[in-house]
C-alpha cells in the first residue's frame, strides 16, 4: 500500500507523513499541530513536556498540583543520574480530592508548599499545574509568590496544564520556569571559557562523558540544563559565554531568550555519533577564538576516534545494510541518529518525531536517504505498517515503542529515558553499536521465526525489485 492510498490513516493525518522521493520534493510535512481526536497518538501533554525537562534538577522539589495520577506516572521515570542530591526522584503531589476541585485547590497547594519547605528545605520548588488546576482556575502564580515571600525559598510556578497544547508547549513552560531562576546569583570568579549545556539530561551519565571532554580542553560548564543540575548553578547560568544546545526541541526557545536577555550566543550541537561529537567539540572550542584550543580539540577528537574505531569496525561488519526506524520525542535526536546509523553502515528508512517543527523536518529531509518515510506524531498502526512496508530491522524509540517493535519481530533500542548505557561521545557510539547489535543479531529471533508462519520480511529478490524507483541502492 502506498502512502497515498493508505486506508488506515485519517485523511487529516496524511499531510503529517511524507515519503522522500523525486516526485514529492516540494511537498511540505505538516507538524506542530495537535493530535486528531480519536487517534492513538504516541505523544504526551504540556505537563509531560515540562516535567521531563525540569525533573533532572536534582536538588529541587518537584510538586505536582493536581490529581494523583500526574505525579504517579512521572515518579522517577527520567533515568537522569545525579552526582549528589536525590530529591528529584521523589514524587510530590497535592493529591487533589473532590472537595479541592469544588472549593479550589489554592489553600491545599499553599499548605503543601509550606510543609515541603519546612520539612525538606530545598533550594527551590517547582510547582506544576495540571489539567484540573487549569479547569478550576487556581492561581498557581499567586500562591507560589506568596510562599516565596513568606519563606524566602524560590518557588517557581510551571504553567503546564495538560490540555494547553502538546509536549512541545510543555518544553516552553519549562524554559519559562528556568528563566525565572537564571540570573538570581553571580559567580565569584569569571572563567574566560565558560559555557552552559542546554538540553543535556544526563541519561545513563551521558553528561559526565561530555564534561570530561570539556574539562580536558579547559572549558568550564557553568550550568547544565538540566542534567545533574543544582539550583545554585542554574541561578548563575547567565554568566556563561556560550550556550551549547543539544536537545534543540526542548531548549532552543530558552537559548533564544537567553540570547536576547543576556546576550549569550548559542550553537546547536549533538554529542551523539562520531562526526556530531567532533563537530560539537570543534564548534565549542572555535567559539573562544583561541587557535591553540581548537588544535587541542582536534587532537582530542583524533585520539578518541582512533580509540573506538577498531572496535566499531567489528560492529560495522555485522550491522552493514540493516535498516532502522527512528521515532523520537525531539526531531534533533532523529537527525543525529540518521548520521550515526550511517556511520555504522546502516540506513534510517523511517524517521519520525513527536514534536518536530517544520525546520527540523527540512533538515531530516535533507539528511535522510531517498525512499525514507518521514512522519510527524505517528500512531501505533502507522508505525507497524511502516515497519513492514519499509522492511525495518530495528526500531529506536521510547517505552511505548518497545513492545511494538518486538511484536513486529524486529529489534529495539531505547534512545529515550530508559537507556541504560551512555550513548554520548565517541565511546557512546560504541555502546550504541553494541546495543544495536545485541538486539538486531540476537539468536532469539530464530525462536521468533519458528513460530511465525511466514517471515514478514520479504526475500532479497523481492527487496531489490521493490526499490527500482531509484533510492541509490
Amino acid at each position, binding site marked *: 500500500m502506498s502512502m497515498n492510498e493508505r486506508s488506515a490513516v485519517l485523511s487529516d493525518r496524511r499531510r503529517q507523513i511524507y515519503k522522500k522521493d523525486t516526485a514529492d520534493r516540494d511537498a511540505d510535512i505538516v507538524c506542530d499541530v495537535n493530535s486528531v*481526536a*480519536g487517534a492513538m497518538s504516541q505523544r504526551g501533554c504540556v505537563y509531560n513536556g515540562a516535567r521531563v525537562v525540569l525533573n533532572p534538577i536534582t536538588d529541587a522539589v518537584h510538586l505536582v498540583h493536581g490529581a*494523583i495520577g500526574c505525579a504517579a506516572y512521572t515518579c522517577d521515570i527520567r533515568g537522569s543520574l545525579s552526582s549528589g542530591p536525590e530529591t528529584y526522584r521523589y514524587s510530590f503531589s497535592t493529591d487533589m480530592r473532590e472537595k479541592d476541585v469544588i472549593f479550589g485547590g489554592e489553600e491545599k*497547594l499553599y499548605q503543601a508548599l509550606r510543609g515541603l519547605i519546612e520539612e525538606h528545605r530545598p533550594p527551590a520548588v517547582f510547582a506544576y499545574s495540571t489539567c484540573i488546576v487549569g479547569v478550576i482556575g487556581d492561581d498557581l502564580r499567586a500562591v507560589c509568590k506568596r510562599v516565596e515571600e513568606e519563606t524566602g525559598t524560590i518557588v517557581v510556578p510551571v504553567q503546564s496544564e495538560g490540555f494547553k497544547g502538546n509536549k512541545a508547549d510543555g518544553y516552553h513552560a519549562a524554559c519559562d520556569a528556568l528563566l525565572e531562576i537564571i540570573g538570581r546569583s553571580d559567580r565569584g570568579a569569571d572563567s574566560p571559557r565558560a559555557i552552559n549545556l542546554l538540553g543535556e539530561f544526563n541519561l545513563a551519565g551521558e553528561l559526565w562523558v561530555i564534561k570530561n571532554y570539556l574539562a580536558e580542553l579547559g572549558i568550564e560548564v557553568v550550568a547544565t540544563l538540566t542534567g545533574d543540575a543544582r539550583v545554585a548553578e542554574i541561578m548563575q547560568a547567565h554568566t556563561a559565554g556560550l550556550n551549547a544546545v543539544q536537545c534543540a526541541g526542548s531548549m532552543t526557545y530558552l537559548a533564544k531568550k537567553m540570547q536576547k536577555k543576556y546576550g549569550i550566543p548559542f550553537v546547536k550541537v549533538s554529542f551523539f555519533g562520531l562526526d556530531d561529537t567532533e563537530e560539537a567539540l570543534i564548534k565549542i572550542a572555535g567559539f573562544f577564538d583561541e587557535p591553540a584550543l581548537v588544535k587541542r580539540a582536534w587532537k582530542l577528537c583524533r585520539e578518541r576516534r582512533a580509540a573506538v574505531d577498531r572496535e566499531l569496525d567489528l560492529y560495522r561488519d555485522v550491522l552493514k545494510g540493516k535498516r532502522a526506524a527512528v521515532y523520537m520525542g525531539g526531531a534533533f535526536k532523529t537527525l543525529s541518529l540518521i548520521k550515526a546509523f550511517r556511520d555504522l553502515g546502516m540506513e534510517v528508512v523511517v524517521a519520525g518525531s513527536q514534536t518536530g517543527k517544520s525546520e527540523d523536518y527540512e533538515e531530516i529531509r535533507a539528511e535522510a536517504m531517498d525512499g525514507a518515510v518521514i512522519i510527524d506524531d505517528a500512531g501505533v498502526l502507522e508505525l507497524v505498517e511502516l515497519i513492514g512496508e519499509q522492511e525495518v530491522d530495528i526500531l529506536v524509540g521510547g517505552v511505548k515503542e*518497545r513492545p511494538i517493535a518486538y511484536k513486529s519481530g524486529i529489534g529495539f533500542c531505547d534512545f529515550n529515558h530508559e537507556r541504560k548505557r551512555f550513548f554520548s561521545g565517541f565511546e557512546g557510539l560504541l555502546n550504541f553499536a553494541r546495543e544495536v547489535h545485541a538486539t538486531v543479531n540476537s539468536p532469539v529471533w530464530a525462536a521468533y521465526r519458528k*513460530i511465525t508462519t511466514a517471515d514478514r520480511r520479504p526475500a532479497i529478490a523481492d527487496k531489490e525489485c521493490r526499490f527500482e524507483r531509484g533510492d541509490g541502492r
Partner: protein
Amino acid sequence: MVDIAECPDIERQALAINPAKTCQPIGAVYAALGIHGCMPHSHGSQGCASYLRMHLSRHFREPIITTTSSFTEGQVVFGGSGNLKMALKNLIHIYKPEVVGVHTTCSAETIGDDVPGIVEEMRRAGELPEDVKVFCASTPSYVGSHITGFANMVKAAVDAFAENGEAAEAVNVLPGFVSPSDAREIKRILKIMGTEVVVLPDVSGVIDAPMTGELKLYQEGGTKIEEIERMGASKATIALGREAGNAAGMALATNFQVPLEVLPVPIGIDNVDALLMRLSAVMGKPIPKELEEERGRLVDMMLDAHAHWYGKKVAIFGDPDVTEALTGFCVSMGMEPEHVLTGTRSKDWKAAVTMIAPKATVVDDSDLFMLHRLIKRNPVDLLIGNSYGKYIARSEGIPLIRVGFPITDRANLQHFPVVGYAGTAWLVERIGNTLLDWKEDRTPDYLVELIQ
C-alpha cells in the same frame, strides 16, 4: 542512595510523597482491555492516554491500546462533546473495535461533560454503527484510586450489557485488579471444578497474548459481550476482592437478583479453600481430586520451608484486595506483619486487615513516604510490594518481593500467577528462598553451609 533522613512527624494533610496509588483512569483502561475487542477511550487530554499506556506498557511489556479525545483549551471552555463525537467516529473508523469503553478524566468530569448523554445522542442521530457497542464509566481522577476506576469500569460494563434471561448454571467471577496470569489461573481452577463461568474482566489472552508474529490491536482473549449479557441470569456472583469487585457484584445483585459472595483474593491456602468450597456449595459438586492434590503439594512445600519464615517481620503495601490476601498468607506462614499500607482509602480494608494481623500498623489512603517512616521506626526483615518499594528496601537493607502493580524493573513476573494453590506455591518458593539468599549473601565464609 535514595534515603529519607529522619525528620520530625509533620501532619501532612495537603501532600502525598511517593504515591502508593494512581488515578482512576488507568484502572478503567485495564478493566476495559479485559473485554473482547474493546478499545478503551480516554475522554481527556492526550497526555492522559499517553501516561496510561506508558505505565501499563512498563509493567506488562506489551503494547497497550487506548485512544484519546485530545482536549485542547477549546474543550475546556466550551465542553468536550464535539471532541468526543469526533473521537468516537474516528476511532471506530480507523481501529474498528467491537466495543468502546469510554472513561472520563479529571478535566472532563470538572467541565461537566455528560458522556453517556453524548453517546446516546450520537446513537439516536445514527452516528454510531449499529454493531459497535459503547459503554461509559465516570472515573474522575480526584476520587479514589486506580482500583476505584477499575471497579467503576467493570460495573459500567455490567450496567450496560447484563440482561435478564433464563436462569443458567453459570457462575460470575470478578477476579479484580490482578495479572493476566492470575485470571488464567482462576479460569484453570474453575475448569477443573467443572464450573460454567463468566470471568469479567478477563485480561488473559489479551495482555499476555502469545507471540504470533503479527501485531494485532485486538487479541483473542477478553470477556465477550454475549457473556456479559448472560451474567444477569447466572446462579451466583463471586467477587474476588471487595474493593475491585463489589460494585459490579452489587449491580448484578440489585438489578438481576444474582446472589453475591465477596471472597478475598485467592492467595494462601485459606483463601483458595474459601473459593473452592464456595464454588462447591454453589454448584453442588465435590472438589475434584486434582485440586486436592495441588493443595497437598502446596502444604508440603509450606512445611518444608516454614522454619526460616517463623517470626520474620514483614511490611506489605499495594492495592487493598491483594495486600489483604498477602497479609493473611504471611500470617499463615508464621510471619509477623508489622506494617500494611495502601494508597486507596477504605475503612473496610483497614478493619479486615486489622482483624487478620491485629499487631500490625494498618494504614489506608497513604503513601510510600509514610511507609518508609513506619519502617524506620519499627524495622522489618522483608518488604512485599511493587517496584516503588525498591528505594525503601535498598536504604533499609532488606529484600523486596515484587508483587502487585506496577513492576517496572523486573521482566516476566506478570506471567507468574500469585493466586490459587499454584500461585501460592510460587510465593512460598520466592519468599522463602529470597530470605535464604539474603541471609547467605551476608554470611561470612566460615558460616556458609551446604544444607539449609
